[in-house]
């Protein structure tokens, strides 16, 4: 039984320009989230912002006081601006975990993770769960938007390729460009059981999907859409799939890569 809970902020600190790490603790956290699942979080009881905002679970830890949930968020608009102002000891309201999460790869697969921008928040716990036995492509518009680089360097056991659209860090160009270059020089990888996991802004996911279709690559993408309820009730978060509209919060946020109609 999921519950609507109040949790205390134990940390809400900048990790980079425009991005914060939010750590919440509550003795009421009942279910362990899976990588790719998310929570709906609300900062206060005012009616503006009104709706809760969806955030992927970044990490789950435990402390003396009970469970701890960590979120990595980008300060974007009204809701996250408000969230940024919250202090240690303040409380937030939330419910979750919600959505399906990333399916685990079969034994013979080579997981390749592709994160764009804040998409790192949902793919990082997957990388941890797979003990770093992955290739990881991580890109952002500019170096200032790349998060958790040291943690990734310590974690990823295969290739870790960083890119920035403006060339300020790693390779210049998009993550999809970086993936393309990598596969051109490692064509043997494509013949094995190559399995993509992608999370990032919509244009990136569209590019990844097109690329995957061209190369016949299988995998999963985590989608974003405005949400109201987060539990499948309002039909507000629909995305078009080959089998009609599906709910990002319920059938998703993770979809098979060829399923979405762009």
């Amino acid at each position, binding site marked *: 039984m999921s519950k609507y809970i109040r949790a205390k902020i134990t940390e809400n600190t900048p990790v980079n320009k425009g991005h914060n790490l939010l750590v919440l603790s509550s003795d009421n956290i009942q279910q362990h989230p899976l990588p790719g699942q998310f929570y709906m979080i609300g900062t206060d009881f005012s*009616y503006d912002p009104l709706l809760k905002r969806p955030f992927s679970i970044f990490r789950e830890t435990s402390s003396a006081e009970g469970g701890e949930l960590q979120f990595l968020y980008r300060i974007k608009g009204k809701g996250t601006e408000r969230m940024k102002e919250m202090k240690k000891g303040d409380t937030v309201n939330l419910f979750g975990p919600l959505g399906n999460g990333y399916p685990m790869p079969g034994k013979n697969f080579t997981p390749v993770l592709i994160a764009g921008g804040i998409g790192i928040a949902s793919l990082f716990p997957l990388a941890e769960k797979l003990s770093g036995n992955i290739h990881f492509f991580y890109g952002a518009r500019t170096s200032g938007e790349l998060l958790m680089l040291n943690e990734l360097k310590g974690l990823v056991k295969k290739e870790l390729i960083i890119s920035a659209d403006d060339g300020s860090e790693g390779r210049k160009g998009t993550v999809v460009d970086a993936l393309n270059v990598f596969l051109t020089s490692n064509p043997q990888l494509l013949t094995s059981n190559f399995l993509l996991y992608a999370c990032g802004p919509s244009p990136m996911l569209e590019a990844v999907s097109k690329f995957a279709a061209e190369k016949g690559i299988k995998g999963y993408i985590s989608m974003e859409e*405005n949400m*109201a309820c*987060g*539990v499948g*009730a*309002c*039909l507000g978060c629909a995305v*078009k799939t080959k089998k009609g*509209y599906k709910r990002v919060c319920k059938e998703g946020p993770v979809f098979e890569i060829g399923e979405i109609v762009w």
Partner: protein
Amino acid sequence: MNLTVNIGKLKLKNPVMTASGTFGYGEEYSEFVDLNKLGAVVVKGLSLLPREGNPPPRIVETPAGMLNAIGLQNIGIENFIREKLSFLRQFDTSVIVNFFGDSIDEYAKAAERLSAVDGIHGLEMNISCPNKEADWRIFGTDPKGTFEVVSAVRKVTDLTLIVKLSPNVTDIALMAKVAEDAGADAVSLINTITGMAIDIKTKRPRLGNITGGLSGPAIKPIAVRMVYETFRAVKIPVIGMGGIMNSSDAIEFLLAGATAVAVGTANFINPSATNDIIKGIESFMAENNITDLNELTGGIKSPQIEMEASGAE
């Protein structure tokens, strides 16, 4: 303490229902809410055939409210009966099915079909839909259209029939009266108010459908006023909704004249909102020595209203 209220043939254990379209088919919230405690569960609006709905984005937040343009997406009546109803039958609560059609004939067929199955206790007809028989007309905004479509449905069902009114009209009390004359057992109001929002950076509408329905606290004063006007115009019970976030809001609607209330957008913000509101109403009654909830209905006090009332007699 008595919290039961009567709506047509239905006796609800308390006045708190869910608003159609905000509570799915009940199961979506069953992890958060004890459905047995609810006065009634009103499900997402159904049509004879499944509907795909509108392109995204379908929702956008606005100050103290939200706009939605879901486009009446639903699984269709037959799928509902086959896949969803057995879940709802497990609970000791009234199940009210919200439905709509594109024509009078579709409304009647839908009502007839829904009346023939076990486990549906009441019908709520959403008349805020375009009317295929006359393109320019929305059933819910044209008194003649409202009368025709409600009469047609009344003929084919013995279930409690609630007519859900659109607020996008000049005189809601008139629409309620028309529904009553056509045989409605109750009216529910308000549905969402048509609105829109534009992204000033991209200059694009923020909804895929351009316009959508506004709900949430932003619409509450309008809804309270409309319930108040409707209560004074009809004899049938009024079910009030629009921005109810807590028990104080719910009681405000009762005082304005509602016999029962429905909770919509609040479910999104607090998935246990309905249960919390029931508890809050109970505490309010206890604190104020109210033994029967029905005492609250229409209990608004104002010398002006009392004068008008005595003058009218």
